[in-house]
C-alpha cells in the first residue's frame, strides 16, 4: 500500500467498478451466482428486484467484512461471512415486510436466496478480506452490476420468447405477432434454457473480448 492518499475515484478504483461488467464478470467469467441466474430469470421483474437486493447486500457485506478484516480469525471466516450476509438479508426482509409490503411479496423467496448467492461469499473471501472498506464497497457495486446486467439480459430473452411479455406487459400481443401463427416457446420458461442463454452470452462476449480466450 502506498503512503500517498489515493483519490476516491482513481483509475484503479474505477476499474473495480468497470472490470466486473465485462473482463471479470461474476457470472460469465468468474462463474459465480449461476444458480440464481437459472432460478429467477423467467421474468424481468424478479430479476430486477433480485439485482437491487444483491446490490445492497453485497456492497454492505463487503464494507462490514472489510472493516472487520483485521479482527476476523481466519479459521472461522466463512462462518463469519455467513452470519454477516444472513443478518443483512433478514434485516432487509423485515424492513421490506414492514414498510413496502408489496415489494416484499414480490421478492418472497428470493430474499432468502440471496444468502446462498455464491457471488457474495466469493467477493467477501476474494476481495473484502484483503482490501479497504471504500475499495470493497466499489467492488461490491461493480460486481452487483456485472451480475445484474447478465440477469436482466437473460430474463429479457426468456420472458419475451417464453411468455411474450416484457415486465408483465404483453408486447407480442400488442404487436399482433400471434396473428401470423407465432407461438410462445414454452421451453424458454424451463431452467435449462437459462443455462443455454447464459452460454450464448458467454459466446458473444468472447467473440468481442479477445482477452477472455485462454491461450492454447
Amino acid at each position, binding site marked *: 500500500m502506498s503512503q500517498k492518499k489515493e483519490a476516491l475515484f482513481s483509475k484503479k478504483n474505477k476499474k473495480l467498478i468497470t472490470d466486473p461488467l465485462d473482463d471479470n464478470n461474476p457470472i460469465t467469467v468468474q462463474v459465480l451466482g449461476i444458480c440464481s441466474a437459472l432460478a429467477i430469470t423467467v421474468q424481468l421483474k424478479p430479476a430486477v428486484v433480485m439485482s437491487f437486493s444483491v446490490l445492497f447486500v453485497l456492497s454492505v457485506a463487503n464494507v462490514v467484512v472489510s472493516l472487520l478484516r483485521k479482527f476476523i480469525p481466519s*479459521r472461522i471466516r466463512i*462462518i*463469519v461471512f455467513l452470519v454477516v450476509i444472513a*443478518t443483512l438479508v433478514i*434485516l432487509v426482509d*423485515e424492513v421490506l415486510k*414492514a414498510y413496502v409490503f408489496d415489494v416484499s411479496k414480490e421478492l418472497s423467496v428470493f430474499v432468502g436466496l440471496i444468502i446462498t448467492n455464491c457471488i457474495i461469499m466469493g467477493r467477501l473471501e476474494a476481495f473484502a478480506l484483503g482490501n479497504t472498506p471504500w475499495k470493497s464497497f466499489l467492488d461490491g457495486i461493480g460486481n452487483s452490476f456485472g451480475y445484474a446486467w447478465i440477469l436482466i439480459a437473460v430474463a429479457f430473452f426468456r420472458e419475451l420468447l417464453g411468455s411474450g411479455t416484457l415486465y408483465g406487459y404483453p408486447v407480442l400481443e400488442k404487436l399482433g405477432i400471434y396473428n401470423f401463427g407465432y407461438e410462445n416457446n414454452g421451453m424458454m420458461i*424451463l431452467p435449462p434454457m437459462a443455462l443455454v442463454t447464459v452460454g450464448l452470452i458467454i459466446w458473444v462476449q468472447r467473440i468481442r473480448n479477445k482477452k477472455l480466450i485462454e491461450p492454447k
Partner: protein
Amino acid sequence: MDLNKNTYVFFFSTAMVLVVAALLSFTSIKLKPLQQKNIALENKQNILSSVGIYVSREEADLNYEKYITDSFVLDSDGQKTDIDISSVQLNKETKKPKKEQNMPLYISNIDGSEKYIIPLRGTGLWGPIWGYISLDNDMNTVYGAVFDHKAETPGLGAEINRDFFEKPFNGKRIFDLEGDFVSIAVVKGGAKENDYHGVDGISGGTITSDGVTAMLKERLDKYLPYFENKMKENEVNDIMNFIDEDINLNDTINKLN
C-alpha cells in the same frame, strides 16, 4: 495478537452472535406491529376481491366494514359457534381431525344478494398456498376466487394469484346436476368447454395446480353440512314466499270479485 488462538475465536464468535442476536430481535420487535397490520389488511383485501371488490390495501378496512355483513365460525356439523373468527388460524385447523375443526365463514352482501366466502388453505410445491372462494346464495355457483402462495416458482406455480387463473373460476359449480359434491378441479392441458367443474391449469405449474384442486376439495367438503342446512332453509323460504304470493293473488282476485 494471534487471531487463531482458541480463546480469541471463542470470544469473537460469542461477541458476534450477541451483537447479531440483539440487532435482529430489536428490529423484529420494533417492526412486528407494522408487519401484522399489513398482513391483516391484506387478508381483508383478499376477502373483498373474492367477491369482486378490488381496493387498495389502505382502503381495505373501510370497505370491509361496508361489504362484509357477517362473519362467524362453524363447527364440523355446520352449526354456528361463538368462537372469535380472528382467533381461528386455518393452518392449525387443517391439521386437526375433521370432527374438531372450526370453519370460518364470511358473508358479504353484494347488490342485495348474499355471497358466502370460504377461506382456503393447502399446500403447493414449495410451501403453503391459500385463498378465498365465494359462492352465490345457491351455495353452488362460484362468484369469485382469489389465491395466493408463499413460495411457488415465479412464472410457473406463482401465477395462481393472477387474474387469468382466478377469473375462470367464476360461474363454475361445486355440485353436479344430481346434487353430489364434485368441487372444482384445475385441469392439466386445459379444461373442456362447458365443463362446469374444471378450469385451465398452468403449464409448468402442475404440482401447484394440483395443490389448488386438493385444497378446494378438502376445504369445501368441510362446509357441506352448513350448505345443506342453508339450502333446506332456502327451499323452505322459497315455498313460503310462493305461498305468500298465492295468498296475495287470491286476495286480489277476491277483491275484484
